[in-house]
Structure formats: C-alpha cells, structure tokens
C-alpha cells in the first residue's frame, strides 16, 4: 500500500512539475515598457505594445515572441509631427495599424540572446535578427531599422537619416 502511495505521489509530482514547466514559459508585459526610436529629428516612442512572450533561457527551443505595436500610438512630443507620421506619407496608420514581430528561433549569444524572426511594418515583411538581453524580469534590445526597407519615405526629407535606432525595454511579470 505504501509503495502504491509513493508511486502515486511521484507521478503527481512529475505531472505537476511538467505543468509548472509549461506555465513558466509565459510572461505578461508589465507597465513601464518603452519602445523608443531615434532618428535625430524626429525621435520619440510608441506605446500600445501587446502580444505573447514565451521565454525560458533553459528552453529556448520552446521560447517565442509574437508582439505588436499600435502605429497610432506614436509620440514624437509634437502634435503636428505625430499627425504627419501617422499619415499616408509615412506609416499610413489607417492602412497598416500595427507593427508586428514574430520570432521563428531564439538562440543564445556571447552577450545575451538573439531572436530571428519577421518584422512587419508598413505592409512589408522582412527577416531580421533582434539581439536582446534578459535580466531582472526585463527584456532589453537595441537595433537599427532601415526605414527604406519598409518603404517609409515621403521623398521630401532627404536629410532625414534612413537608419532609425530603436531601443526596447520591456519589464515582464508571470
């Protein structure tokens, strides 16, 4: 009888730990996240970050990011520039309301991690590699995006840098 109880308990423990393992991959985006961009003038940030974050540094094969940002949430600190950025000349927020990133593979690097995946912006999909770190329940990433790759240009601002620096900080909770 004792043997059967031990067997049952160990099976329950194994099942419980397996369930806990599956659960531990999921993270929720917490308040205080920042998706900032810098191109000299304009610079600013996006809010409206949503999506699924599955991450465990010990189980990268099962980890995955599928996140979106609302284009209409752009804030450059200037109302006129915000309106202009959302217009058909730039992001065309009405036609392309979100910027999406979906990872296909996450791997470890010397400095942290990198997520290979598809960035969809302004109706253009492009394979990118997003280097990031994860510490104290916060994801941090810095990358450069060439807006010309996504046809984001009205042809009237030749002095504006084609490369935009993007810095992302996303605190997460279980």
């Amino acid at each position, binding site marked *: 009888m004792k043997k059967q109880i031990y067997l049952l308990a160990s099976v329950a423990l194994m099942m419980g730990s397996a369930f806990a393992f599956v659960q531990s991959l999921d993270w929720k985006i917490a308040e205080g996240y920042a998706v900032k961009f810098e191109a000299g*003038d*304009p610079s*600013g*940030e996006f809010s409206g970050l949503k999506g699924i974050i599955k991450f465990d540094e010990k189980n990268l094969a099962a980890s995955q990011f599928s996140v979106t940002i609302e284009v209409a949430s752009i*804030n*450059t*600190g*200037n*109302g*006129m*520039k*915000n*309106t202009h950025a959302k217009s058909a000349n730039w992001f065309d927020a009405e036609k392309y309301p979100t910027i999406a990133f979906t990872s296909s593979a996450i791997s470890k690097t010397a400095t942290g991690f990198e997520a290979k995946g598809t960035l969809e912006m302004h109706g253009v999909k492009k394979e990118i590699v997003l280097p990031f770190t994860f510490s104290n329940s916060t994801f941090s990433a810095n990358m450069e995006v060439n807006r010309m790759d996504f046809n984001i240009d009205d042809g009237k601002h030749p002095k504006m840098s084609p490369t935009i620096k993007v810095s992302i900080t996303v605190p997460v909770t279980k």
Partner: protein
Amino acid sequence: MAGILAALAANIYNQIYFFATEIDYSNIINWGSLLSLNLIISLLAGLLYWLLTTLFKSRGAIVFNFVYSVGSFACVIIPIAITLPLTTPNPELFPGLTVPMVFFPVIAWMTIDPLFKKN
C-alpha cells in the same frame, strides 16, 4: 503693467483650457512660467518702444504697433513647432492652449497703452 495683465489673462485661459480638456500641461505651462515669460516679453517690448520712439519720434508708436503685431503673429510657429517631453500627454492639443497666449502680451499692451498717453 502689460506683462502682469497678460500673465493674468494667460492664467485664466490656462484654467479654462484645463477645465475643458482635462489635460495637464502644468510641467510646462504654470503660474511661474506664464508670469515670467509675459513680464520678459513686455519688458523687451517696452525697450523696443523706447528705441523706436527715439528713432522715429511721433511715428515710432505706429512702427512699434506694426512690429509688435507682426512679431506676435510670427511667434505662433513656436508653440506649433516645439517638441514637448515624451511624458507630456496629448501634444496635439498643446497649440490650442499656447497659440492664443502668444497674442496676450500685445493685446494687453494695446489695451492699457491709451492710459499712459499724454493729451
């Protein structure tokens, strides 16, 4: 005097705008900033008035009114073009608060100017 009057009008307008939109721009627009800005503008206007009346005598006041009005109108671009801190909510509504305020010093000046004229 014109500076104090303009600052008072700007503060009343600021309160009305906050009541209407419930958007708080007090980190940029507040009693202190409005009073100091209106006083500085009015002092500079006084200096310009003295300079122009010295240069053009009786026509100086006419030239001054023209320069002050056109200058105020040109300054409308400042609140429209300004980049606010990213923590400031609804930057789209900021010009609605500040563009009218640009004209307050010149309006205040022209309102009280006749009181200081010698017959």
